[in-house]
């Protein structure tokens, strides 16, 4: 078992060697506090501002509209709570399949007297722009819809939702943690006011992310302290992380397009192989509107975790759709919202491909997957029932 195949890039990615190289000087030579006025501080600040410039170039916005945070989770919290708390009350529109960072921020706000509409999705995992329009009320203060879902990879029609929300003068937040640096995000055309994007999904370090806040968007800080990030996010910035994130974005700018095409090809190869060799399997998510490298499938009468463990023993890393927490296994809330029957949803497995994934990797996984699923099914009482 010397072969190792990592197919969990939606969870996190290895840091690109050029990113590591860019970060290193910021630990020991340019270690200053970017708020300090002396040379040490200025060196750190300069590095950070170069990174900010790379973000703003990539997103085609101005540097002042980028705030650095500690992760996608913080960006989502800052966006949702920052806008809501600036209004003090009102109604929020979101979807049932958002990341927990958005869902739980919304639930927290419900506890503070806000009202939230959690829109359903269709069988492909799509939010309907018409549903969004119908959900908007006179007191709606925020619409927050993710760009792509991390589990199934479906890309939401934000280009149809955004302009309609903008017309009504309501801020539109998009959690683009899974799409930023993977597929184009056109802020102007999509009518986006706030965008969350994260570093460790695109070969940058963990614990650093950004929030784009369109000029003029009314919001308050969620974390209080110093004057950092134009008083929108207090706390000494993670300079080395931000520098690395900047380099990661710059690399994505060059590689993104070709990489998306390559991963789409590999994903097709993977799915073609699985559907040809494993009976009773279904593909989850939209057939075409999806992240290039994300494949989510359900094996009927198989429990996801046994597949994950079996593949892990063969050196292959994928993730389970159903999550077992403190003794109760629950099918993924995303698949449940999409109407996937429970006996299928319990057997969902996600493979997310990335820069390092090769055709040989996919072929190896195909070789070990089908006997594994067959073996697990043979053990199951359902196989004879």
């Amino acid at each position, binding site marked *: 078992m010397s072969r190792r195949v990592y197919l969990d890039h939606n969870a996190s990615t290895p840091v690109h060697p050029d990113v590591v190289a860019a970060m290193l000087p910021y630990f020991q030579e340019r270690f200053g506090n970017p708020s300090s006025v002396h040379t040490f501080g200025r060196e750190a600040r300069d590095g950070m501002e170069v990174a900010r410039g790379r973000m703003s170039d990539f997103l085609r916005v101005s540097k002042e509209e980028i705030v650095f945070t500690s992760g996608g989770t913080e960006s989502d919290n800052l966006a949702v709570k920052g806008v809501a708390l600036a209004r003090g009350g009102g109604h929020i529109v979101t979807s049932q399949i958002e990341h927990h960072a958005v869902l739980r921020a919304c639930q927290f706000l419900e506890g503070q007297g806000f009202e939230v509409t959690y829109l359903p999705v269709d069988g492909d995992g799509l939010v309907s722009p018409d549903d969004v329009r119908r959900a908007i009320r006179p007191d709606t203060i925020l619409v927050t819809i993710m760009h792509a879902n991390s589990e199934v990879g479906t890309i939401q029609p934000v280009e149809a939702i955004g302009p309609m929300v903008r017309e009504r003068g309501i801020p539109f937040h998009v959690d683009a943690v899974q799409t930023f640096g993977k597929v184009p995000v056109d802020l102007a055309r999509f009518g986006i006011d706030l965008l969350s994007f994260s570093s460790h999904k695109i070969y940058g370090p963990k614990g650093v992310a950004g929030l784009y806040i369109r000029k003029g968007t009314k919001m308050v800080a969620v974390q209080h302290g110093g004057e950092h990030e134009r008083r929108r996010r207090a706390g000494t910035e993670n300079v080395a992380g931000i520098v690395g994130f900047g380099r990661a974005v710059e690399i994505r700018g060059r590689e993104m397009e070709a990489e998306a095409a390559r991963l789409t090809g590999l994903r097709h190869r993977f799915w073609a192989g699985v559907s040809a060799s494993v009976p009773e399997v279904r593909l989850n998510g939209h057939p075409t509107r999806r992240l290039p490298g994300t494949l989510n499938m359900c094996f009927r009468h198989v429990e996801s*975790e*046994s597949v994950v463990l079996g593949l892990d023993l063969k050196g292959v890393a994928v993730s389970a759709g159903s999550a077992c927490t403190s003794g109760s296994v629950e099918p993924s809330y995303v698949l449940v919202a999409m109407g996937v029957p429970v006996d299928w949803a319990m057997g969902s497995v996600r493979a997310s491909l990335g820069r390092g994934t090769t055709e040989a990797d996919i072929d190896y996984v195909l070789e070990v997957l089908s006997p594994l699923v067959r073996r697990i099914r043979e053990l199951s009482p359902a196989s004879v029932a």
Partner: protein
Amino acid sequence: MNYSQILIDHFRRPRNAGMMRHPDGVGEESFDGCGDLARFYLRVVDGRVAEVRFQTYGCGPTIAASSAGTELASGRPVTELLTLGEAEITEAVDGLPAERAHAAQVVAGALRAAARDSLTRRGSPSQAKESEHV
């Protein structure tokens, strides 16, 4: 998740997997709120487990614990299995992470049910024997 070598070995090469025709006892247990299901079949000779097989749907630890459970049950007096506890199953796979403790519960519960079932049937052995062959 950190699993013991013994658990991994049982998962890789499950012992005594599969259905048994005409068993002397069958027992099942499923876990609340979780799809895991274990079913055990017993063949009993002179009050002892002569053969045992399992069928399990569940995560890796539940499959491994089922396999380990068959080794534990094999050769034992059926009456002993009536009080089989999950601790013994947990020990047989050299420990379970706290979040996977249910694996031992399901397996111990299913083995106890299979033992109960075989003893109930033994109440009228000749009848049971005959009905099995129709």
